[in-house]
């Protein structure tokens, strides 16, 4: 306890406070830039923190991590482009809220939910790390494969119009993940001799090609169809009402549920915020008295997704700090940062380097309070993005999208990936194929393939291995339930909602 208290006192040192404010601001900024996000934000900052004392450097990185998760949600809400993949689920209700002129409310809901989720995840990290880490040890290859199946069925059931199209998208994503060198046998698959594809389809150009580029094309198309030169926010001047604590308190069940989901998924290596946001969102919709309202622009949808993805930040640190297993790309970069500072995950981190480790863990929580303060004003600042003229915004986003795809590996090839995927996904979007399952498929592909092949190797080709393990059975049952509910929802409420939306669009088109 003494270490925790001394770590809390450390947080009030002016230098750490200022450093964390800068870290959160940088995190929000990088998180909001499409294609960037926590991983790149942290990676870019590592060289600057290398020479700094770890008790200052690690809180800065923790602050970037927290800020970036929130920042990703800002662009999801404001322009319908996720700053990073964990913010993909925020689009579902965040962007419709903006279209309704409630961007300010969506942003503050996102901020408060992010703060809550971040604190919850941080507390879990601080208090439950040694206990919860045992759960991940129960996961074998078969469980990882079934977990991937569960993740895909969840996302397919959330895809709205047709669960089959969601499943096709998800399977197509899995297929894309097989491009590159097979990590088990070393065989070259579907690269057609292109060396840039040996590591598989690069994630950042893929995300931009799936979300950002089609969104730009749709944005420009909308300008022509609607003759509108600004975002559809005619009644929203960026100064609308904020989310209140009372409203947030009404969503306490959703916030706690999503935070628990996010923390647990964060603990499972490889799962990460990309899944957590969808599971959190899906569970909130499933448990809601009005599931048909989800996807139409309600604060609860934003809160569910944001609380889940921000709580992952703390959860993903549990296996990282104890076992050295990164839960996602950002925590993998964080692992590198820890090692640069001479901190090797494991028992020593909690004994020899306990003061630094606890400072870092407390910083994860403390940065949420800083996020609340900075984000409250930053949200208003970013809300003004919505007022930018579309004529300026559209080419700007295209430029940032193409440069964002270049930024990671600095290959022009990655820009081609974004461009070709972008035009392909534009047509898929028009035909109501959901994009998030493709992304999830690509992310889950390596995990699921390794899980499937290793499980079959262990069982000597016996497929019943997936039906004989308790965790697999639970996950398969949950998958079946999510498919069932997905079909039920798409047939009833959401299907009708989409039909209405299509009719409205047709009217708009005819009108213009």
């Amino acid at each position: 306890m003494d270490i925790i208290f001394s770590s809390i006192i450390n947080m009030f040192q002016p230098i750490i406070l200022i450093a964390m404010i800068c870290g959160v601001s940088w995190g929000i900024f990088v998180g909001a830039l499409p294609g960037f996000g926590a991983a790149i934000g942290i990676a870019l900052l590592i060289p600057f923190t290398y020479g700094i004392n770890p008790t200052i450097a690690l809180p800065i990185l923790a602050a970037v991590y927290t800020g970036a998760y929130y920042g990703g949600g800002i662009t999801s809400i404001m322009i319908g482009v996720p700053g990073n993949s964990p913010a993909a689920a925020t689009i579902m209700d965040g962007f419709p809220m903006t279209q309704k002129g409630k961007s300010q409310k969506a942003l503050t809901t996102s901020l408060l939910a992010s703060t809550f989720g971040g604190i919850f995840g941080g507390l879990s990290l601080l208090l439950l790390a040694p206990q919860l880490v045992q759960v991940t040890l129960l996961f074998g290859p078969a469980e990882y494969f079934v977990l991937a199946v569960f993740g895909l069925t969840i996302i397919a059931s959330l895809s709205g119009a047709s669960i089959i199209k969601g499943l096709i998208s998800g399977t197509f994503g899995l297929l894309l993940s097989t491009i590159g060198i097979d990590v088990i046998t070393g065989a070259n698959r579907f690269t057609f001799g292109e060396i840039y594809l040996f590591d598989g389809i690069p994630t950042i150009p893929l995300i931009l090609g799936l979300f950002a580029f089609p969104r730009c094309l749709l944005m420009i198309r909308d300008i022509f169809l609607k003759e509108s030169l600004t975002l559809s926010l005619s009644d929203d001047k960026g100064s609308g009402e904020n989310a209140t604590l009372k409203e947030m308190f009404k969503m306490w069940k959703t916030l706690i549920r999503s935070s628990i989901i996010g923390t647990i998924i964060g603990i499972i290596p490889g799962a990460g915020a990309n899944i957590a946001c969808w599971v959190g969102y899906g569970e909130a919709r499933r448990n809601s008295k009005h599931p048909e309202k989800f996807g139409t622009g309600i604060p609860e949808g934003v809160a569910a997704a944001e609380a889940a993805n921000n709580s992952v930040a703390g959860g993903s640190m549990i296996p990282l700090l104890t076992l050295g297993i990164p839960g996602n790309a950002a925590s993998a970069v964080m692992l590198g940062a820890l090692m640069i500072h001479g901190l090797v995950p494991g028992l020593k981190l909690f004994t020899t380097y306990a003061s630094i480790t606890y400072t870092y863990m407390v910083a994860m929580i403390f940065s949420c309070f800083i996020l609340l303060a900075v984000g409250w004003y930053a949200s208003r600042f970013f809300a003004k993005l919505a007022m930018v003229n579309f004529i300026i915004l559209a080419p700007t986003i295209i430029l940032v999208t193409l440069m964002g795809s270049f930024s990671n590996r600095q290959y022009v090839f990655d820009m081609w990936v974004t461009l070709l995927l972008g035009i392909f996904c534009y047509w898929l979007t028009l035909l109501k194929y959901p994009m998030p399952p493709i992304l999830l498929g690509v992310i889950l592909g390596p995990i699921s393939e390794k899980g499937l092949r290793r499980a079959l190797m262990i069982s000597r080709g016996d497929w019943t291995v997936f039906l004989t393990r308790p965790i697999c059975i639970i996950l398969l049952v949950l998958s079946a339930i999510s498919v069932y509910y997905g079909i039920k929802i798409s047939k009833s409420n959401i299907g009708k909602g989409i039909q209405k939306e299509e009719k409205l669009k047709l009217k708009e088109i005819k009108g213009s």
Partner: protein
Amino acid sequence: MIKKKSNASEMNLLSHFAFCVIAIFIYIISFNITPASSMFPRLLSIVIFSLNAFLIGQYFYYFFTENEKEVTQNRKKYWENIFNLKKYTVIPILIFIICYLFVYAYPRIGFELSGFLLVFSIMILINRKEAIKKFYIAILIPSFFLLIFKVGLNLAIPLTIEIFFK
């Protein structure tokens, strides 16, 4: 239910066939890979093919059971809104060509010039009014991002100044 399915059916049918072709292509070329490495992609191609075959079957089921008048009306409405509107197809293709030229030119003429051409041409394509103002904006936007990417993020960006003056 039947009406809803037939609304966007023709174009969807095309996409289902396209996915089937992709699945068959993947299945065939996976024979060039070792059996252990080709197992997963082959499994996925079978799943994609099956799901799309189901949707194709569903389409033809509705095609033969639906009222003829409804089919004609729905199809007419659909084609009107997808293909008769050039804005759905021509504009995205033009934007794609501009972006294609940007990516092609970017390493050859540098970020400043290619970025300017990208931003300016898209702005002019959207709206031709106030061309002079747009010209200045098209200079400012890439300049701003040049500062972020080059100075802030330290990316190895090919610069027009370096290409033409070194």
